[in-house]
């Protein structure tokens, strides 16, 4: 269940993620990794409190220590202003338009997903690629979020079960264990 996008938008986003980083080889691909949830979580960051922007530290629990990544940092007033501008856009509010209007991620995604069309999910792969390429800036935006959702910490909604890290032999957040001197110098 998406937290910010509609079910229909989420379905189109899922299909677009599947074209951006599909399943191949031993890698799970963007959809199985939960990238659509990562993106929906960012767009809906302010639907929870504290907002889902920065996971807390110092450890996730994957290598010992407390499972602190499950909670998120409260934002300062300036942090909240920055992230509301980034996600919601400036919306004509003077306190957000000190350097002019800013289009937020919510509007960029919502308009891009609408441009892809209600039948995007059932279109063929070539047709899907052509429609995505026709939306200015969208393939780049989506790809960057795919990279973050695939290879960031699972607590942000993507990288489900750490499978994307496992597929590339990346240990992830290794605190508080770290590596021994021998593992560093003579692996």
């Amino acid at each position, binding site marked *: 269940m998406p937290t910010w996008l509609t079910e229909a938008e989420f379905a189109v986003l899922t299909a677009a993620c599947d074209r951006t980083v599909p399943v*191949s080889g031993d*890698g799970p691909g963007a959809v199985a990794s939960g990238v659509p949830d990562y993106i929906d979580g960012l767009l809906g960051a302010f639907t929870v409190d504290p907002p889902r*922007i920065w*996971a807390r530290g110092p450890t996730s629990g994957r290598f010992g220590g407390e499972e602190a990544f499950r909670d998120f940092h409260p934002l300062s007033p300036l942090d909240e202003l920055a992230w509301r501008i980034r996600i919601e856009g400036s919306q004509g509010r003077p306190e957000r338009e000190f350097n002019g209007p800013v289009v937020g991620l919510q509007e960029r995604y919502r308009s891009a997903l609408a441009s892809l069309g209600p039948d995007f999910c059932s279109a063929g792969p070539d047709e899907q690629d052509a429609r995505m390429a026709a939306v200015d800036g969208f393939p780049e935006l989506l790809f960057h979020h795919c990279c973050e959702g695939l290879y960031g910490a699972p607590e942000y909604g993507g990288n489900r079960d750490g499978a994307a890290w496992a597929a*590339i032999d990346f240990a992830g957040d*290794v605190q508080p264990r770290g590596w021994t001197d021998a593992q*560093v*110098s003579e692996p």
Partner: protein
Amino acid sequence: MTLDAVIIGSGPGGSAAAEVLTGAGWTVAIVEKGRNHLLDPDDLTRPSADYSNDEIKFHSRHFLGPDPLVEPRTFRTGEEDGDRVHVGEVNSVPSTVGGGGTHADGKVPRFMPGDFRLLSDLGPQPGAAVADWPVTYDDLEPFYAAVERSIGVAGLEGANPFAGPRSGPFPMPPGAAMFGAVRSTAAAERLGYHPYPAPTAANSVPYDGRPACNNCGFCSFFGCPIHAKGDPVALLTRTMATGRAELLAETFVSRIRFEGRRATGVDLVEADGSTRFLPARHVVVAAGAIETPRLLLLSDVEHPALGRYLMVHFQTIVAGGMPYRTYAERGRSVTHVHDDMIVGDELSRTAARDAGLPWVRGGLVEHAGAAMPIMEAKHYPPGAAHNRLMAESPIRKRLWAFTMQGEDLPYAGNRVDLDPSVRDARGFPVARITYRPGRHELVAHEHFGPRLAEILKEMGAQWTAVTSSPGRGNAGFTPDSVPESRHNMGTVRMGTDPATSVSDPFGRLHAYDNVVVADSSVFVTSAGYGPTLTLATLAARAAHHLV
């Protein structure tokens, strides 16, 4: 009671000054525009638990600030670009308690004795304002040693044949050598260079109540989750333990107020937007070589050299693809360096002559790889091959690279001023950076890049590539024209002549009796070394001179 000093900025410069001033009995306020994620909010004499091995938080989402949406800077390569060609991030150092120390990977080399007398030793360069510093290595040596002890530096005395004399050994032995560095140092030695363990502010043994580094690999651009790093945590916890310091985080200084030749205090903008005046007997400005001149300009300080001679280190980056895994994700990000490209040799002297330059200097060369998977993933094209490329991983698993911190010469045209119209979220004009590399930097890059590639080939590289940061700038502005070195220096240069320098040999503004600059703004030349240890050393020395 009026404060003895207000210190603007809590990075290595402001923290080093704060430790000395509070140690001498002064009462101070440390004003930091960023948030406090370094110290425990319930007990500022202890470190926090906010840092983590989290690439999204630290790389993608500006956890250490500044967020370019609310605190942008602007950029142009020269006046012919118009008012600006870029708005956003420009060589930002963290805006947070601890400043640039929090995200650095902790390499803290001293400058060499000759770095302070470039004009005397080597002579002038056309178009550049090369000058000697008004201080010598010998003046600074006791303060270098004290700051090394204070923050905790690991290194090996005698390992670098070009280093200046030391009054004692490093406080700690070097930490574990990264696997790739074992190979690259061996290759460099075979070609006649002199690599050595990087002097590093990361504990190799438990030190000063903080643990030894456990090699997690999340060093460069991350805060240290276990506080094994010599970021200003030690300086600030000791400062707070004196009971004579107040930390005002999320508080912006918008103006220094003056009466005649004296500052009377500073105007503050607090987190909720309210404003107040904070009086103080002395003002210590340690906001970094971009924000410090910005504040002085916002305060209507006037000097023809203010903001000029900005230097950032023109970086030459040479990468090689190895037929074996390099394990760059394990260890302290950089464990070995060499200085041969600063010192030069017959080949580099010939290259300078061939280019029509009197001399050329490169910079410190860092031996390192690439560790982070989101960064890697963004470098491959999307589509069906992405998973395979990530698994094969020519970047993260097989790359080894050199980054040369090329010495920037001081040019009057490279500068910081106030942008004529772009504002921060608080409504104040932002810093505008005008920068392009000079001919000296480009000649150094062209000469040393291929020589570094030869070392990577000796190490086994199947391919090598030479790039620079920023780009070479011969085709007008491109997005890669914006520097990313994070080494900002100059802009409030020190000297003995008030006509040509803004601050005196102790960082005090010539025009005011009680305003001291305690950061890399005062640098006369940029050497080829990261500025952190030298700026903290100058700050400690300036503070000792005050008390």
